[in-house]
């Protein structure tokens, strides 16, 4: 019984000779906290996209809650897994920071008051409540990251997949993010953190997966 299961999964990008993810078998239990590390180009982001159902493997099987991932629609996957891309700019599409966070909540059918409360909680936690009327595209990379995180966390996924979450944020917010992730973990939400930042993930994971050339080289519990 596992939450996300990958069974000898391989994926090759169109026009490439070598696979970006090569015969990877992994299983993640519900609520598990995992760090995925490895050099640039080792296939970490590709693995995350496969797990999110954004790419279809040419070989192998992926299941989410024991159902093949290709049977899910993207909104269904989004309800289970929260994903933050390496480049937060590509996840922002609303006309204000507030609307960005409220977007998913409104589609979920939450009441107005509830939406306001949740938006306030997350935005003020990251000290960006003052930016609520700003256009998200005009923010700095780090601020964008905070907005995307707020928007995804507000939806309360069962597991959070973060692709290099600390790439652009300052030390102070890094600490806050870490505190929040510890908190999330304590609530039983799964964490998959892709990173180079060993300092940051220290204490956030119980399992470390090391990738190289599209393969899992080490899987330490």
């Amino acid at each position, binding site marked *: 019984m596992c939450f996300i299961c990958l069974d000898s999964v391989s994926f090759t990008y169109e026009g490439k000779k070598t696979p970006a993810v090569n015969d990877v078998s992994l299983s993640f239990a519900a609520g598990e906290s995992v760090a995925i590390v490895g050099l640039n180009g080792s296939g970490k982001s590709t693995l995350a996209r496969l797990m*999110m159902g*954004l790419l279809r493997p040419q070989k192998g099987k992926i299941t989410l809650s024991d159902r093949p991932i290709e049977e899910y*629609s*993207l*909104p269904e*996957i*989004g*309800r289970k897994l929260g*994903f933050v*891309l390496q480049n937060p*700019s*590509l*996840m*922002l*599409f*609303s*006309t204000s920071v507030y609307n960005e966070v409220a*977007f*998913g909540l409104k*589609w*979920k059918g939450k009441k107005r008051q509830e939406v306001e409360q949740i938006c306030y909680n997350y935005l003020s936690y990251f000290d960006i409540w003052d930016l609520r009327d700003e256009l*998200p*595209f005009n923010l700095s990379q780090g601020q964008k990251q905070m907005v995307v995180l707020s*928007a*995804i966390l507000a*939806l309360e996924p069962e597991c959070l997949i973060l692709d290099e979450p600390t790439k652009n944020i300052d030390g102070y917010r890094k600490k806050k993010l870490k505190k929040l992730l510890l908190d999330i973990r304590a609530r039983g939400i799964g964490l998959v953190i892709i990173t180079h930042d060993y300092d940051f993930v220290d204490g956030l994971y119980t399992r470390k997966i090391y990738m190289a050339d599209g393969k899992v080289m080490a899987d330490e519990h």
Partner: protein
Amino acid sequence: MNIDIRTRLLISALFSGMALIYQKIEYLLIILIFNILTLVLFKIRIKILFSIKKLLYISIMMIVIQSMFVRTGHPLLKMGSICLLTDNGIIYGAAIFLRFIILILSGMFILNSNISQLTRGLVKLGMPFEIAFMIQMGARFVPVFFEEMGEILNSIQLRGVDLRKIYKRKVIKVYVSIFSPVIYSV
């Protein structure tokens, strides 16, 4: 085969021009056949970068619109007093379908050459360098544009919007919100 870019441009312009001028299906069919023959003759590989299904869908829409609003031709299918299908409508839809195919196939003459070749060709044909350069830069961003659009579409769906299920009017709203960040970020 290595054909001068000017020849490619000329042929492409010729075929697409004819597709726009002629309206009769018979003519369009002949143009299409010649277009394909020329592609084969030049040994240009045809890349499928459009979905025939969408094209058919558009053509069927045009057939219905034409049948409903243009009161010529013989009705073939009626619902009350509204014509849903006329013979003229079908001909019109088929012509649109053919035109699209010809336009896309004419594009293949240019698409298979790279962009800097294309701009060099344009400059040789007398286009000011600045404008050719702008075209080159624009073309450079087209793939980026589509990639980013796909990314944002995914992101919207992952946040709970099922694009396959919501109404058409709302789809337009969602598309507007996709275009703005892509344009901003480029």
